């Protein structure tokens, strides 16, 4: 070997990164230190084979010389190679940040997008990690260093030969407001906030709530010139039980006044995420009547579900879909929906019913027969129903934004708040 022997002591943090697609091809590799052979991924493939499905691949794998920490995102595995002790969450969180950045840059985090933009990906990875330690992970900074691809720019670049790479150090990197880029200018100054609440619930057979809580986020889309200083206050901030903040938020202000005060990053970002305490009663907007039965010693069963509105605060419930993972013995399903359409995948045994809106006059239902594999014992348990829905203009917890004030800039921004309630992990046991 002509390669110099590797120094005996190894460095912490992330050594290499491999991107692997679902069929097991390593389509990108990046090393921040000495090159680690692709063969290290064999241990990962081994673990992947052992796991029943992709979801069950252990995120941390120990191999004789390395440790592999991986995440699974958008049908891709991000496998990082570690050599020494490191907090695993540190790596996991970072890998997700990488995936987020790709998403942000290319609109999707897919193999095709990454392959198409391999140079930008490489430049990004180079900036995000130095010697395996995160250097710049804020989207606003990265975008100043490396401009995201747009069709227009790539045309211009190919004609003028100019580059995607910024030549100045983003000022954010140096300041304590690393999330905001300098010199932002808009002709229309706008600030939009989306209050999105998700109901996580487990409903038991009889329809009573086993567990329910509300998880919310406030996503912001801020297009304001200069250095605006915003403060957002709520009518009822006490509702928020546990909050995590974007680094821009002044913690002290929140502690003392329950006001969100911040200099926002430019563009889209998640301002806070919060949980409404499970002590509060959570309104469950839909109910499901279900009767699923499999006959003993017969190759068929009955399936009947009906969905109706419950506590919907007078709003329309829309975008309802029901997903059911049917037992393995189910061969096919013969159903009639009164509304919407359904599909059943005989391979994955997933039944998906796209319901649409609920009209209280005529409740949507899905009825019919289930064909079972003959001879097989009837399934022990009825499958649980996963329900998705959406209610516009409503935050189910009752959270309300009171006002948004802007300081530091002279213009009058256009402000808007939107509320949406969705089903999160909403499961009905049958």
């Amino acid at each position, binding site marked *: 070997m*002509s390669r*110099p022997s590797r*120094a005996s002591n*190894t*460095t*912490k943090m992330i050594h290499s990164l491999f991107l692997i697609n679902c069929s097991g091809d390593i389509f990108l590799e990046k090393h921040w230190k*000495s090159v680690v052979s692709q063969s290290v991924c064999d241990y990962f493939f081994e673990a992947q084979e052992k796991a029943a*499905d992709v*979801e*069950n691949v*252990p995120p*941390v794998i*120990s191999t004789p010389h390395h*440790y592999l920490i991986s995440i699974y995102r958008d049908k891709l595995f991000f496998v990082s190679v570690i050599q*020494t*002790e*490191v*907090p*695993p969450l*540190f790596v*996991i*969180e*970072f890998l*997700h940040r990488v995936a987020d950045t790709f998403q942000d840059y290319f609109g999707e985090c897919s193999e095709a997008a990454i392959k198409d933009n*391999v140079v930008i990906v490489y430049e990004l990875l180079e900036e995000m990690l130095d*010697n395996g330690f*995160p250097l710049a992970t804020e989207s606003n900074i990265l975008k100043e260093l490396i401009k995201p691809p747009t069709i227009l720019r790539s045309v211009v670049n190919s004609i003028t*030969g100019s580059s995607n*790479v910024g*030549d100045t150090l983003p000022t954010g990197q*140096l*300041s*304590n*407001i690393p999330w905001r880029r*300098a*010199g*932002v200018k808009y002709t229309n100054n706008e600030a939009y906030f989306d209050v999105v609440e998700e109901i*996580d619930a487990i409903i*038991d057979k009889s329809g009573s709530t*086993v567990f329910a*809580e509300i998880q919310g986020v406030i996503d912001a889309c801020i297009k304001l010139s200069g*250095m605006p*200083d915003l*403060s957002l206050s709520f009518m009822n901030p006490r509702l928020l*039980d*546990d909050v995590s*903040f974007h*680094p821009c938020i*002044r*913690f*002290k*202000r929140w502690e*003392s006044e329950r006001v969100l005060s911040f*200099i926002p990053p430019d563009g889209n970002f998640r301002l806070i995420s919060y949980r409404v305490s499970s002590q509060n009663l959570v309104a469950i907007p839909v109910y499901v009547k279900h009767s699923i039965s499999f006959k003993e010693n017969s190759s068929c069963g009955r399936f009947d579900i009906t969905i109706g509105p419950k506590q919907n605060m007078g709003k329309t419930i829309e975008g309802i879909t029901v997903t059911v993972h049917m037992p393995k013995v189910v061969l096919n399903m013969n159903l009639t929906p009164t509304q919407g359409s359904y599909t059943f995948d005989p391979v994955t045994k997933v039944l998906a019913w796209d319901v649409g809106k609920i009209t209280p006059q005529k409740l949507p239902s899905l009825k019919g027969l289930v064909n079972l594999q003959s001879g097989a*014992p009837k399934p*022990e348990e009825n499958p649980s129903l996963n329900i998705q829905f959406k209610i516009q203009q409503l935050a189910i917890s009752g959270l309300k934004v009171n006002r948004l004030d802007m*300081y*530091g800039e002279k213009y009058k921004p256009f402000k808007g708040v939107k509320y949406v309630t969705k089903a999160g*992990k909403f499961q009905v*046991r049958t």
Partner: protein
Amino acid sequence: MSSNSFAYNEQSGGGEAAELGQEATSTISPSGAFGLFSSDWKKNEDLKQMLESNKDSAKLDAMKRIVGMIAKGKNASELFPAVVKNVASKNIEIKKLVYVYLVRYAEEQQDLALLSISTFQRALKDPNQLIRASALRVLSSIRVPIIVPIMMLAIKEASADLSPYVRKNAAHAIQKLYSLDPEQKEMLIEVIEKLLKDKSTLVAGSVVMAFEEVCPDRIDLIHRNYRKLCNLLVDVEEWGQVVIIHMLTRYARTQFVSPWREDDGLEDNEKNFYESDDEEKEKSDKKRPYTMDPDHRLLIRNTKPLLQSRNAAVVMAVAQLYWHISPKSEAGVISKSLVRLLRSNREVQYIVLQNIATMSIQRKGMFEPYLKSFYVRSTDPTMIKTLKLEILTNLANEANISTLLREFQTYVKSQDKQFAAATIQTIGRCATSITEVTDTCLNGLVCLLSNRDEIVVAESVVVIKKLLQMQPAQHGEIIKHMAKLLDSITVPVARASILWLIGENCERVPKIAPDVLRKMAKTFTSEDDLVKLQILNLGAKLYLTNSKQTKLLTQYILNLGKYDQNYDIRDRTRFIRQLIVPNEKSGALSKYAKKIFLAQKPAPLLESPFKDRDHFQLGTLSHTLNIKASGYLELSNWPEVAPDPSVRNVEVIESAKEWTPVGKSKKEKPAKKFYSESEEEEAEEEESSDSSSDSEGESGSESGDTGSSSEDSSEDSSSGQESETGSEAEAEGKRAGKRNSRLKRKSDSEDGEKKNEKSKTSESSSAESSSMEESSSGSESASESDNEPVPRKVAQAKERKPQQERHPPPKDVFLLDLDDFNPVSTPVALPTPALSPSLIADLEGLNLSTSSSVINVSTPVFVPTKTHELLHRMSGKGLAAWYCFPRQPCIFGDKMVSVQITLKNTSDRKIENIHIGEKKLPVGMQMHVFHPIDSLEPEGSVTVSVGIDFCDSTQTACFQLCTKDDCFNVNIQPPVGELLLPVAMSEKDFKKERGMLTGMNETSATVIAAPQNFTPSMILQKVVNVANLGAVPSGQDNVHRFAAKTVHSGSLMLVTVELKEGSTAQLIINTEKTLIGSVLLRELKPVLSQG
């Protein structure tokens, strides 16, 4: 790999394409092509041509393709000479891609790589900090041992660079150099030591990382930087926070004594935590001789806000810090945040659940309130399900077991059989740990035996076996039932378990056991090895207890076993035969055969697989894997006696400038007092007046010395921007602005967890305190902003005397700056001037961000000695009481007005148990009472402090003052002037604020008095006598301004006295609180007009 074949090329410099062509053919990589040899060759050839071309666009294209090759893991090393020539390209994108290439291949092509070094050395001197930084990055990433000295030099220089960004990169380079050449350790430690002193938040995370890598055992380097790191922590970027917190956790475990007490029973502490402060105080007074080191407290306090971070790694780091170093009663705060992380993606869930599992074994109570958050969903991945199940098991107790069992019933039926099996084990564990439900569980498990799924049945059998073993009571029925199962069940483990169970209990089922043996003898040859062994055991046991019926059967089985293919079975057969079958050769042992086979076996312990993980630090890789990972640093045990805490003291000068609030008080007072836990503070009620005046004095002096400089500094920094002196000052200014906001967190936490806890429980944190701290921190950061650049400029001027660095007056900074930057005239050198306007806007924005940001709470100008009678000695049966307003910020709550009550015993006997009884307060009003006074001797007097939140109204607070025998109704009505706290502000701010408070917020009156009453000193004296106002410096002789804010809501109260011609004056009050404003006006008016 291919560097050998390249060796001859080094003289030629790799220029000639022809030679390279040959080169390529000889070294073409095995991974590069299979049958496409020639096409690959051509491709590279054309890449080379493109790299040689004059056009940047062609070069760029080529580089992009090469990077594409690298990304795919193809070998592009033969292009090295062609690529390396472009290292000096003017086009920054080409340059960057060349860097990417260099870093990847330099190690393989060391000699050629040397060609690029001079470019980097030049770039290290570039005026653009971005270029300096990236040159250092690449230079240090080229793993070529020859350049170690160059790297060392570059690192040393960069560590003294003006730009914190370059210094950050220097910290990164330290680790790289260390892994390249560990010999440099000593020199590198010097650099680390220097960088640890750096005050930039940008550098802190990286240098601690380097410290952890190079010299994690040199804990002595941390001492003097400990407090600074604690205080900077919230401002460090998130990745740095993780590293620093982990390091500080280790540090704390070596430097402080354990805050855990023996009797730190969990339940009681949980309660303790949520209890109000007094109760806690009382409790701890009794129990706790231990006092926490203030530095220990500082760390715990300053990390708390980070629990709110969006970054799961930071939250986990804080959680493990609390777990490992905070008093057990305080660790409860982390559970909520950890549970929040469970909403995150599956990988985060996995790690967090693992850690919760470990924690929940030791301290159940922490997670009990969140029990339902661990309920399993059918869509969870199996690994998450099992972890949740593990936690549910750990949390199970008498109170919640019935709910849990109902939940488990659902899980048992899960389609995910692996999970169903895990649930059965869980039920077994619950059955053993909670005796009340043992029978229920056992019955449930027996029901499962008739389940259709074999895995479920098998697992149930195994668990039942364990349960029965623990409870050798009468369970004949169950055993019979299980014996029947042998006909149907095929899973080896389950069969083996049943056989073993029958063998153990063969005397309880005397009829069934021999029959089972008979059946098994028939199928012996087709059984699994595991089952065979158990058949042998069963045979032996029956032979010993019931040899009449089973002798022949056993011998038959032993014969079968003798010729089995498996040697274990053959061995076992031989062993058993010798023991049980009596023959002449059998030794002494056979006498004891029965004792050997039918001995009482200890019941297995069903315990958590996470039991043994707690010796690893939480949140680490080692903990996750339950193996000691390489490079894992053990957490040491608490020392018996704390090492000398004074090592963390920093010289006065430094402390004063760096982290004022804490450091300053440190030098003013013995450390203990300032830091001491809130509990203690309360305990020292008697001294409260003194201690609070102290803290006030401090805040006063602080605003005093920064008040003036804050304006200067803002002017300075803006002038700095105009004069283009550079990004430095600007960035500092920006940081100052930012810190304005961020420091709030700090000062908040410094203010004591008492407040934190309070805001938690009562949610009554106040506006004033925030604005007060905010402003003081603001001014502090402003002063810092003009101080900070100094050391660096000086450092660059090669003066290396740290003590001197801090003294040059601010003006010098800019002189130096100009010197430094003026000669550089390339536009690249000044990347930021274009940004200046926005920066100014930024700073303004921060000033405007809250109306209170300009308010500095200052010391009262004057404290009236006037006392008011609370209780006359006649009506108080000898107990007399007076109260007065010490005009100090209340220590009990930020919205409270501090009131001092002096109690005097004028009777001739002792008055015992003086305390405050029933309170009849108007709605919203709150009162913090003093601690009961045990006894007051005749003629003795005592002064106590209470805090009353008057809600900015002059309503009366009525309450009862009680002694052992009597209760007296008393009341306190505050003069309006005492509902204020003075603030210091500049005239400019005053005008601005006043401009915002016009119209209905303004009240005014005309005052007529003799001219001698209108001297400045007279006006001041009169005004402050009536109300607790702060004087505002005025540029005009005939206008006097005073400012204060209301205690409860923090609204500004601006008083202006404008002298008019003759003997009239205009008195104007601007405030949002118009009611108080008009009352104040009414009170001030007569005072001013009096002679």
